[in-house]
């Protein structure tokens, strides 16, 4: 593959570079195809995207809101990435987030007289445990009875959703509010503000700590075992790895991380649990984990991208009346393009080579 004397085939031999270029290609393609779909459906794509970028990144408040949106997505996608890495299709982040937010909403206002640090720590621990327990159910079904985790985690999402509706309308209904929401959490449970005057809170730092812990874990024996189980469960078993134990541990950590994403929405952003506050986050997290190549550092960048997308879409709606659900449509497209990234990169390299050859033969 020669391009003007430049050999491009080296890209295929450098895994990191190849990964980076193909992911960028995938994201660009989804943005382009998204633009075509918007213009077909009667929305001006250039206006939409420019409103999206302005809304997400230009100005202190916009950046702060992007950070706010990124926080739960980062937590959840770290959890999803870990599970996917071990070969578990945990698509239950949606429900695990909900359970985490329920626990946080309850502990946030019900325990009085605790110092701030202890209250937040307690809320974190129990939110994590809540999500971990929720993910443990499909984990046990998978490890003990070999029941497909895709279906069980999906069912758990719907169950969690209806539990949240129940909790918000019945036992934890805020009598002072007309909106369906729980009472506000106590000041001692609130995450400190990161950028004064905005809603950006310290949750993002916690999420980054989570990512760092996962990177450290990758180097451990457990991290290695996860990788082996994900690559080849049969080989892992014959190598003496306790596969059910790995499945259960992975699900617990994965669900717990996702639940922390729900927690930050309650004690960081809304300061109470509102109905449908985290709707769709779990499915976005799947897209983010895949775009981030299931790698904690990659996931940090891809959740920033999607956080900006979701926040920008909210702002774009107010400017252009293009509904904010475009974020979801673009996320789905990105997932599909990420699947195609390998063949796409090879195709484009081939195309470049072919174009060069074409022009050369034209010259001579």
């Amino acid at each position, binding site marked *: 593959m020669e391009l003007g004397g430049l050999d491009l085939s080296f890209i295929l031999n450098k895994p990191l570079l190849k990964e980076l270029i193909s992911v960028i290609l995938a994201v660009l393609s989804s943005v382009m195809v998204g633009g075509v779909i918007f213009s077909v*459906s009667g929305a001006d794509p250039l206006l939409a995207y420019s409103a999206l970028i302005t809304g997400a990144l230009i100005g202190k408040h916009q950046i702060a809101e992007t950070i706010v949106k990124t926080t739960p997505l980062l937590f959840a996608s770290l959890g999803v990435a870990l599970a996917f890495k071990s070969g578990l299709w945990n698509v239950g982040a949606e429900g695990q987030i909900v359970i985490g937010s329920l626990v946080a909403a309850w502990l946030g206002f019900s325990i009085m007289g605790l110092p701030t640090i202890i209250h937040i720590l307690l809320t974190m621990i129990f939110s994590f445990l809540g999500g971990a327990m929720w993910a443990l159910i499909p984990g046990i079904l998978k490890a003990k009875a070999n029941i497909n985790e895709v279906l069980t985690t999906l069912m758990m999402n719907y169950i969690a959703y*209806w539990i949240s509706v129940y909790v918000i309308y019945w036992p934890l209904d805020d009598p002072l509010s007309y909106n369906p929401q729980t009472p506000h959490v106590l000041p001692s449970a609130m995450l400190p503000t990161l950028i004064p005057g905005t809603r950006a809170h310290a949750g993002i730092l916690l999420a980054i700590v989570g990512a760092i812990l996962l990177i450290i874990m990758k180097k451990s024996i457990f991290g290695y075992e996860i990788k082996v189980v994900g690559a080849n469960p049969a080989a892992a078993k014959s190598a003496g790895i306790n596969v059910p134990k790995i499945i259960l541990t992975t699900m617990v950590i994965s669900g717990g991380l996702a639940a922390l994403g729900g927690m930050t929405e309650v004690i960081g952003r809304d300061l109470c649990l509102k109905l449908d506050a985290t709707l769709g986050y779990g*499915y976005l997290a799947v897209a983010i984990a895949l775009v981030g190549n299931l790698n904690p550092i990659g996931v940090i960048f891809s959740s920033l991208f999607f956080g900006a997308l979701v926040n920008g879409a909210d702002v774009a709606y107010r400017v252009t009346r293009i*509904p904010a*659900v*475009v974020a*979801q449509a673009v996320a789905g497209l990105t997932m*599909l393009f990420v*699947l195609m990234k390998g063949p796409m990169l090879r195709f484009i390299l081939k195309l470049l080579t072919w174009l060069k050859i074409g022009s050369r033969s034209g010259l001579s």
Partner: protein
Amino acid sequence: MTSPLGGLEVSLFLNSVMVLATPLILAALGETISERAGVLNIGVEGYMLMAAFASYAITYYTNNLWSGVLGGILGAMLISILHAYLGVFLGTDQVVSGIGINVFVLGITSLWYRIIIGTRTTPAIPPLEIIEIPLLSQIPIIGSMLFKHNVLVYLTYGLIPLCWFFLFRTALGLKVRAVGENPLAAEAMGVRVHYVHFFCTIICGALAGLGGSFLTLGYLQLFFDNVTAGRGFIALALVIVGGWDPIKVSLMSLVFGGINALQARFQAIFGTYRGIPYPFMLMLPYIITLVILFKAKNAPKALAVPYKRKK
């Protein structure tokens, strides 16, 4: 005649069982065929949702229910072609492709719905006409359960044995099952594995599309975000529980239609004055799906394994 189910006629209740079961049967039949060939369509939820939207929107504009049904089927088939391209020809992971399709379709249908209709009003569309089969519909209980429906339900009655016949009594059906169990051996016998995969995925799209169209045109007469509410996922579970057999899968769907109808009744009876909050009723189908998955049987051996041709 009043029943113990709270002043509701038994026949009317049984009628609603069939209505609630029909979209599940159609989606599950499609999934049965594609999984028999070894292609997993997690995106069946997305196919249904796309069809539900397309049939609603087209009927809304044209006021013609038949173009709605057709549009729904075509919309779902288009999405299934996308899955077939990714999962069959590119050999990518079928779980991820399916989830991607679901996320994309949820986003795009919600977007289009807001662009076309907005969020303030939800205009209803005319229902498909109910055809009472003379004589048969007069049979007590069974009559109104099975023979007082719109034409799509009758079509479903025909599709159940047809799918069974196709899979177990035709040469093509044999090829489909062979590909799902052992694609290498099938290819050695001269079966074009990729074409069988492609064909069965699109059949799945068409049947799920019919189910999705029925949901909006034959039952709800409305569209809202995520109108399918996991019905496609439940259909996926029903295929497993029904052991990949069109007849058993349809019977399981019928049982599930019954559970859904009961759930709706309970909601009406207990939800109002006996203090069982309605969210518990609404989560019932999903809990039952979780429980019945314990009865899962052996899947086709090459399910969800992308087939790579040896050159």
